[in-house]
């Protein structure tokens, strides 16, 4: 049964075959991507995850944006907006922003490290399948790239009224978006699942 795969979008059955490097298998009926061949998938994702965690720390500790209007200066970090929304009584919106722009990306990074580091040394992490399922579930809720677009819009909105100074954290945040995208593109979930199979 391992050698068969059903298209997740139209249910058609296929025999799984090995692909040439960089190749993609698509469903001939509906066009969905079935699987891709990825080189050194787990090593690459591990490296990107570690880089991502470092960038995540920088993005959250250092000043993110500074707003200057005449003599008044307002310095913010990534979480400032969430705290301000909470202080204004908008705790639902604050919670949504906290989850989608900070918590989900962090949990995804920690989860991937938790899975890939032991696998690298041929160990089996505790509750591997449960954690990997969670991490895969977090994926669509991390919306850092959308947040970046929000920053751009805020920049234009405030540019006429005051001076905006980008901080180190903003650059780390921008880099983190690319690192996360590269990590998502390098991950072949099938490899993780099949490693799981042999061990249980």
């Amino acid at each position: 049964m391992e050698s068969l795969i059903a298209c997740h979008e139209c249910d058609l059955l296929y025999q799984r075959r090995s692909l040439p490097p960089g190749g993609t298998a698509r469903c001939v009926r509906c066009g969905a991507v079935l699987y891709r061949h990825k080189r050194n998938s787990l090593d690459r994702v591990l490296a990107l995850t570690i880089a991502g965690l470092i960038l995540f720390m920088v993005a959250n500790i250092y000043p993110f944006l500074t707003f200057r209007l005449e003599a008044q200066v307002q310095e913010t970090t990534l979480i400032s907006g969430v705290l301000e929304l909470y202080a204004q009584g908008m705790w639902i919106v604050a919670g949504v922003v906290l989850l989608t722009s900070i918590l989900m990306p962090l949990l995804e990074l920690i989860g991937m490290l938790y899975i890939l580091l032991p696998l690298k040394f041929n160990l089996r992490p505790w509750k591997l399948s449960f954690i990997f399922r969670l991490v895969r579930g977090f994926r669509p809720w991390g919306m850092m790239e959308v947040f970046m677009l929000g920053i751009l819009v805020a920049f234009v909105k405030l540019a006429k009224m005051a001076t905006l100074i980008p901080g180190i954290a903003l650059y780390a945040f921008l880099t983190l978006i690319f690192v996360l995208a590269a990590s998502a593109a390098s991950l072949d979930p099938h490899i993780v699942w099949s490693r799981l199979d042999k061990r249980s």
Partner: protein
Amino acid sequence: MNKSSLTALNASLVSCHSCHLLCKATSASKGAYAVCPRCGTRLHVRKPNSIARTWALVIAAIIVYIPANVLPITHVISFGKAQSDTIMSGVIYFVKSGSWPIALVIFVASVFVPLLKLFLLTFLLISVQRKSKWRRKDRTRLYRITEAVGRWSMVDIYVVTILVALVKLGSLATMRAGPGAIFFAGVVIITIFAAMSFDPRLIWDTQE
């Protein structure tokens, strides 16, 4: 790739939602359920109650969409003057001030995308319920679009978050989030769940 004309359903197989392992479909007795032997996810031939759940979420999103657009999402108090903005008045502000690209971004992300998603999901639901055989591949593509674009609607919520953090200069200028933001965040979240609960395989199940 060896293509068969068989679907997993016809072959009495169930594809695991999480790890895509194919499992033999066993008729579980009442109350019991089957789990994937590899990853432990509960197995379903199709997403459970897909049509009913998606309808419920689509209708909920349409209802919440109204206050999201009518109520203000920001209040600005500047030099003692208060001004409230809804999503649409924010777009109009950008058009008037000449920032066309930004006006377009906000309009597409906040107004067009949620409406497009609701329209497409409604269309897909009706076509599946009518057991339509019309252009299945294109309808699957429409589903893929609804799944991919939803997250970008969040941009307005993030703009508000950044603005309230920055514009906090006492009597000079202070920005507060308005109740519209709560409903708007609701629309985005509900439509994402709606797209997730729809099962595109239903489009293909009517194949003879």
